[in-house]
C-alpha cells in the first residue's frame, strides 16, 4: 500500500477523526468520577487524561489493536487495495453511526461500533463463512463480563474501605480522609486514563493497522503514537468541555467512592487489554459505579441508564456492520 496515496491519506484522516472523537467524548466520560468528586480541576484532569492515555496506547495498546485489525477478519487473504477500501468503509461507517447516535443521545459504544463495522466488512469482503465468529463471540461475551467484573471489584473494594476506614473514622477525622482520597484520585485517574488508552486506541487505529501494519508482526509503534496523540488532541480541544459539563451536572461523588470506582474500572479494563479483547471502557466504568452504589457509596443512581445501554447493544453491531458493508460495496462498485 503506497503511503502517500489519496486513499491512504483518507484512511489516516478517518482514523485521526476517530481518535479525536475518543478523546473528546469517551475519555472525558471515563474521567467523570474524578471530576465529579471535585478531586481534580478540569485542566488537571485534561492533562492527566491526555498524557497517561498516550502512554497506555503506546505501551499497552498493541494487543487489542491486533485483534481489531486481524482477529475478527482474517485479512491475510485480502489484497492491499481491498483492505484499504475496507478500512475506510469501517472507519466512516463507525463515525457516521456514532455521530448519529450521539445526536439522539444514545449511550452507544465506539468499541461496539468498530467491531460491528469490521465484521460487516468481513462478511461482504471474504464471505460470512470466513469471519472469525469464535473471536467475535468472545468479544461480545467480554462486553457483558467487563462491566460485571468492574462492578464486582468495585463493590468489594468499596466495602473493604467502608469497614476498614469509614467505619472507624471520627467526625473530626472525616475531612482528612476525604483529602487523602482526593490526592489518591490523582493516581486512580491516571490509571483510568492509562487503561483507556490501552484498550480504546484500537478503535481508531485497528483498521489502520490492518492497512499499514504487517500481518502477524504486531502493531507499528508509530500507529499507536498516532492514535494516542489523536486522542490527546481530542481531549485537549474538546474533551475538557465535556468534562466541564459533566462536572457541573454530576451528583457529587465522595473521593473514597470515586477512587474505588476508578481503580476497579481501570483494573478490569487492563485485564481485557492484556487478553486483547476490545471492550467498552464507558460500560465498564458504569459497572464500577453501580458496584459502588450497591455498596451504599453513592447517594442516587439512575438505573434506567442500564436499560438504555443494553438496548444500544442490540442495534449498534448490526447497524454499524450493515453500514460498513454498504460503504465498502459502494467504494468498490464505483471503482475507488
Amino acid at each position, binding site marked *: 500500500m503506497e503511503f502517500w496515496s489519496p486513499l491512504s491519506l483518507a484512511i489516516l484522516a478517518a482514523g485521526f477523526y476517530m481518535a479525536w472523537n475518543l478523546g473528546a*467524548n469517551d475519555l472525558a466520560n471515563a474521567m467523570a468520577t474524578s471530576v465529579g468528586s471535585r478531586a481534580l480541576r478540569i485542566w488537571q484532569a485534561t492533562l492527566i487524561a491526555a498524557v497517561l492515555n498516550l502512554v497506555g496506547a503506546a505501551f499497552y495498546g498493541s494487543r487489542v489493536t491486533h485483534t481489531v485489525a486481524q482477529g475478527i477478519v482474517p485479512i491475510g487473504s485480502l489484497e492491499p487495495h481491498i483492505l484499504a477500501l475496507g478500512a475506510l468503509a469501517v472507519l466512516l461507517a463507525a463515525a457516521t453511526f456514532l455521530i448519529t447516535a450521539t445526536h439522539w443521545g444514545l449511550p452507544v459504544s465506539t468499541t461496539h461500533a468498530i467491531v460491528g463495522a469490521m465484521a460487516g466488512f468481513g462478511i461482504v469482503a471474504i464471505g460470512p463463512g470466513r469471519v472469525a465468529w469464535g473471536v467475535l463471540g468472545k468479544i461480545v461475551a467480554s462486553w457483558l463480563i467487563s462491566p460485571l467484573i468492574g462492578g464486582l471489584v468495585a463493590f468489594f473494594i468499596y466495602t473493604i474501605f467502608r469497614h476498614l476506614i469509614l*467505619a472507624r473514622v471520627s467526625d473530626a477525622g472525616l475531612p482528612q480522609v476525604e483529602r487523602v482520597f482526593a490526592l489518591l484520585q490523582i493516581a486512580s485517574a491516571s490509571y483510568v486514563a492509562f487503561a483507556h488508552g490501552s484498550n480504546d486506541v484500537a478503535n481508531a487505529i485497528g483498521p489502520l493497522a490492518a492497512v499499514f501494519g504487517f500481518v502477524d508482526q504486531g502493531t507499528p509503534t508509530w500507529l499507536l503514537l498516532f492514535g494516542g496523540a489523536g486522542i490527546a488532541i481530542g481531549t485537549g480541544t474538546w474533551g475538557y468541555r465535556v468534562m466541564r459539563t*459533566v462536572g457541573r451536572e454530576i*451528583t457529587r461523588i465522595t473521593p473514597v467512592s470515586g477512587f474505588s470506582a476508578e481503580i476497579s474500572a481501570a483494573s478490569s479494563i487492563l485485564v481485557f487489554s492484556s487478553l486483547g479483547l476490545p471492550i467498552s471502557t464507558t460500560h465498564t466504568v458504569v459497572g464500577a459505579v453501580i458496584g459502588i452504589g450497591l455498596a451504599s457509596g453513592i*447517594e442516587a443512581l439512575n438505573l434506567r441508564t442500564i436499560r438504555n445501554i443494553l438496548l444500544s447493544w442490540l442495534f449498534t453491531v448490526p447497524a454499524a456492520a450493515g453500514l460498513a458493508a454498504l460503504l465498502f460495496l459502494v467504494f468498490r462498485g464505483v471503482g475507488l
Partner: protein
Amino acid sequence: MKTPIARLLARSPFRALEQHAEAACATVEQLGRVVRAYVAGEEFSIAAVSRLEHEADEIKSEIRAHLPSGLLMPVSRSDLLEFLWQQDEIADYSQSTAKILSLLRPELPRELEESLLELNEKMLQTSKVYLQMIGELSDVLETAFAKRQVDDVVQRLAEVNRLEHEADELENHAIELIYQAEEMGDFARYHMLRVVFQMGEVVDHLENAGGRLRIMISR
C-alpha cells in the same frame, strides 16, 4: 451533552431533604415569633409563616418529582418518602397553628400566658435540636452509614424525644389552666385549646419525622 456516566449519576435527594428540613424548622421559628407577639398582645403577621410553609411544600414536590422508581439509593425509596411526608407535616402544623392564632385574641389569665410561652420555647428548642440531627445526615452518607455516624443521629433523636416528652407535660399543664379559667368565655377556651393542641402537633411531628429518619438510615 449528557454522557452515560452523567446520566447514571442521578440528582441526589439528600441535599434537598436538608433544605426541606431547614424550611420546615424556619416555619416553626416564625411560628415562635408569632406566639410571642400574640402573648404580648402585639400586632403580628403570619405572612412569613405561610411563605416558609409554601417553600417547604415546593421543595417536597421537587423531591417527589425527581424520585423515579428506577433510582438506586442507599436507603429505601418508601422510607425516604415517608420521612419527607412527616417532615412536611411540621411545616403544615406550624402554619395552621399561626392561622388559628391570628383569628382570635381573647383576654388570657397571666398563668396561661406564661404556660404558653414555656410551651413555645420548648417547641423552638425541639426544632433546633431536630435541625442539628438533620445536619448529621451528610456524615452518615459520607461514611456509608458507619455506626458512629448513625449513633450521632440516634443521640440527637433521643434528645428530640426527651424534649417532646417535656413539651407534652407543658401542653397538659396549659390544658389544665384552660379548663380552670372559668372567667374566660367558652369559645375563647375552645380557641385556646385548639392553639395548644396544634402546638403539640408541631412538636409531635418533629418527633415523628425524627423516628422516620431513624428507620430510613438504620440497617
